[in-house]
């Protein structure tokens, strides 16, 4: 049998929780893991007589996300009831956007290989409220309404991805974008970002083209799971097609869950139920017109997005892909980096300071590096001090650590901590002479050459460093030693 020709056809449905202080239609706080039913009010509890009041900040963030995804933004925003009965939905309707999503017809770019960009089209992105959570215990169930009313944007892509790696790349890129713009904290573990791929496969067999039934995968809570489940599902669908010949038709879309421990997808629902959500416009919230001034104000909050920034860093500063990615992962870090360059720091040196010692410190403190509040000009001064040999690299790391704890300038810290290197030749020559005089055996070994020579030279250098309490510039000392021991 000839090798099978196939192509995965994958679209994503993504729910992103907006990082707003309060819910979409009431003033209750949005808070993860609060005591059940402690962040509720008559509004999000769906109590009689309550009325929704739109959170303007949520709309602004949705528009910002839409702009970052290159979408057209609707001139006015309207809302719709989407009706279905479920205990976690207090009104038994969800307020969503049905026929006029806030954003539509955009795209997101990913780098499939270094330098190679692929566009995945965005069909629509709309705002909606999240539901609460049902919790089942033994023979009864309870409902926690805290999450109900949390603002979400639901983003739907076209089926433009064909591999698990591409889906993963889109997921990561989207997370970077929304975090960059402060639209969402996008923590998958906290359910702030939820991905549901819709997968099927086009298979070419004996000159004919077949499409396998679509499967939607749920319960994906890591990027690894996204990639693994998609790749698994593509293979599974091919096998199933070869066994049964089943192809896509009306009503045979299924829902599957990802079993992370076994690394397989498991059937959850065989046939998609024909839901009739009876969508119709919400009457209690007048449509909101996005005026040109307001729109411009929101657009002003856009910034260079991570992928383009990352590519610029490799091209403009000659940084590695890895370093560029690390630096651009957080907007604040990237902005600090760029500000430090503007203040005169060397790109590679500043990059090393941030990505090595800096990231380690940030990780320990469980914050982003920029959140230490180090001023970019001070960071630039430190980089220059290292470059000019005023301090050595390890002293630089020590100074950076101090800088995370105080507002002192790096030169002041270097002085206070005696970290400034001694590079004065005549001063160091005296110390070298003294060390040589005290260690004639080592001097002999160096001069004799051979096996022991290198070790003896290191020993002598160590002696000088010890006498200067580590402040001698090792390069200068090496040069003097070399000259003296010719």
């Amino acid at each position, binding site marked *: 049998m000839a090798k099978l020709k196939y192509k995965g056809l994958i679209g994503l449905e993504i729910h992103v929780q907006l990082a707003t202080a309060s819910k979409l239609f009431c003033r209750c706080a949005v808070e993860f893991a609060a005591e059940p039913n402690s962040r509720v009010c*008559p509004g999000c*509890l*769906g*109590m*009689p*007589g*309550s*009325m*929704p*009041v*739109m959170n303007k900040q949520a709309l602004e963030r949705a528009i910002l996300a839409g702009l970052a995804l290159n979408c057209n933004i609707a001139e006015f925003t309207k809302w719709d*009831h989407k*009706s279905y*009965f479920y*205990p976690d939905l*207090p*009104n*038994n*309707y969800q307020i969503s956007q049905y026929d006029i999503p806030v954003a539509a017809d955009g795209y997101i770019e990913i780098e499939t290989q270094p330098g190679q960009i692929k566009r995945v089209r965005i069909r629509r992105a709309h705002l909606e409220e999240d539901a609460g959570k049902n919790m089942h215990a033994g023979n009864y*169930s309870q*409902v926690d309404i805290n999450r109900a009313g949390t603002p979400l944007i639901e983003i739907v892509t076209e089926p433009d991805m064909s591999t698990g790696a591409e889906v993963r790349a889109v997921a990561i890129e989207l997370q970077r974008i929304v975090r960059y713009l402060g639209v969402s904290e996008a923590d998958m573990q906290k359910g702030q970002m939820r991905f549901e791929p819709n997968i099927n496969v086009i298979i070419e067999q004996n000159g004919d083209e077949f499409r396998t039934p679509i499967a939607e995968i749920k319960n994906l809570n890591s990027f690894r799971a996204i990639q693994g489940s998609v790749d698994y599902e593509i293979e599974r669908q091919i096998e199933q097609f070869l066994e049964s010949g089943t192809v896509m038709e009306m009503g045979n879309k299924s829902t599957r869950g990802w079993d992370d421990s076994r690394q397989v997808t498991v059937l959850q629902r065989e046939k998609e139920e024909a839901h*009739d959500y*009876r*969508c*119709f416009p919400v*009457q*209690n*919230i*007048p449509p909101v017109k996005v005026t040109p001034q307001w729109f411009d104000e929101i657009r002003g909050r856009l910034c260079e997005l991570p992928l383009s920034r990352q590519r610029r860093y490799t091209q403009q500063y000659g940084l590695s892909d890895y370093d560029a990615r690390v630096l651009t992962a957080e907007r604040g870090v990237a902005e600090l980096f760029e500000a430090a360059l503007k203040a005169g720091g060397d790109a590679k040196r500043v990059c090393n300071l941030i990505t090595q010692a800096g990231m380690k410190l940030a990780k320990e403190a469980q914050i982003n590096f920029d959140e230490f509040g180090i001023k970019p000009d001070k960071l630039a001064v430190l980089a220059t001090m290292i470059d000019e040999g005023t301090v050595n690299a390890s002293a630089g790391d020590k100074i950076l650590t101090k800088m995370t704890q105080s507002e002192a300038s790096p030169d002041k810290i270097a002085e206070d901590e005696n970290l400034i290197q001694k590079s004065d030749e005549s001063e160091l020559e005296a110390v070298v002479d003294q060390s040589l005089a005290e260690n004639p055996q080592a001097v002999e070994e160096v001069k004799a050459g051979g096996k022991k020579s290198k070790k003896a030279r290191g020993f002598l250098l160590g002696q000088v460093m010890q006498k200067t309490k580590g402040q001698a510039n090792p390069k200068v000392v090496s040069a003097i030693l070399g000259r003296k021991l010719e």
Partner: protein
Amino acid sequence: MEQLSLLDVRNKIAAGDIKTADYVRQVLSRIEKVESTVGSYINIFGDEAIDRAAQIDEKISAGQKPGALAGVPIAIKDNMCTTFGQTTCASKMLENYQSPYNATVVEKLLAADAVIIGKTNMDEFAMGSSTENSSLKKTVNPWNTSRVPGGSSGGSAAAVAAGLCSGSLGSDTGGSIRQPASFCGVVGLKPTYGRVSRYGLVAFGSSLDQIGPVTQTVSDAALLLNVIAGHDEADSTSVEQSDAPIDDYLNKINEPLDGLKIGIVRDSTEGADEDVKRSLNEAVEVYKGLGAEVVEVDMPHLDYAVAAYYVVATAEASSNLARYDGVHYGYRSPNATDYVEVYTRSRAEGFGDEVKRRIMLGTYALSSGYYDAYYLKALKVRNLIRQDFDKTFGQCDCIVTPVAPTTAFPIGQNIEDPLKMYLSDIYTIPANLAGIPGISIQAGLDSNDLPIGLQILAPAFSESKLLRIARMFEKNTQWHKSKPKIPSE
């Protein structure tokens, strides 16, 4: 006892001529005497009212400035949320429901030092035209106890007519203030949609619902409107002061309008009783006598108003009433064996027939495949009716019509015939569809000595003008002085 108007009571209390506590006791003793006959209240706050009256008296005797409704006993339809008592909507579903908050109108009444004396009966969830759909209580017409008080704010209208409060609040989705006001011979005002906050009004049809006053006189209605009108952050559909300023509606209430032009809709009273037609013609003559010009206007789409209304209102209701499921609050069936049955049985047992009928109608109208033919088409009709009004108000200041085709009908007569019942709102529904204000004032008595109402409709946010036009009629006629004789009196 002579029935004082709300304004009189307010003025006498503020002037120290009468004590709030005395007056409230007087009203409570009247309630004791006739309420068992009329049945207007679901809940009476007797002790609380006396306590509050004492507080207000103290405030007045301490020389503090009394609020605009200081000491006035006001009744509230039982679909407005109060933290005191229940908020039942006259439904088994909410029979024991206690709201955690007060509706904005309730807060405003309390801030104006009103004494909230009780909560009134209504058709369940405001669905009906006779108050016969109440699952909790029977209310009769004070003019004739074998007749309905109208609905859905039947309790609010009956309480005012019977002198069991100085004024009340009702809600009007398709005529629910104006029609019972007409049947009970009192004044009922439906303000413009957006004029009064609906926050805390249990929703029936959110694009149609509006709270308004039921009173003995037009001036009383103006005073109550003064207190309850205004923008509310909690109701996004309430109109900003900058867009539609609120007047002091009492300010020029006694000034007649010069050059008043009254519109009457051609061929619109065909289905009405002869007494109703006669009364309308007499009212028009009264206005003519006061110098008004009468113009005949055409409203070509009015014929479709009832049909469009029952699609729009039920569609919205089907969604608004979805929340009553036995899961979070309200009635839960003790017979449910699994979670689906919590829904199905709680709703089957908790809702009355008319509510279920409307939920089914609305669900059907919104269903996929029917949406365009019903809901969308109804919205188009609604738009055409709005345009009819816009055009008509280019030719006249107001339109006068009957409030209902009949006077109060016998209890039980229409309850088995929903379509006939629905038609009793034929003259009131258009104002809700168009969002404009309308008022019902008494303009006659029929051959059975039952009150006949006159409806006046005016452009959106022109309540000031509307009230003045109504007051012109009232000032020059005696109908508002006719009172019912209640058997147990």
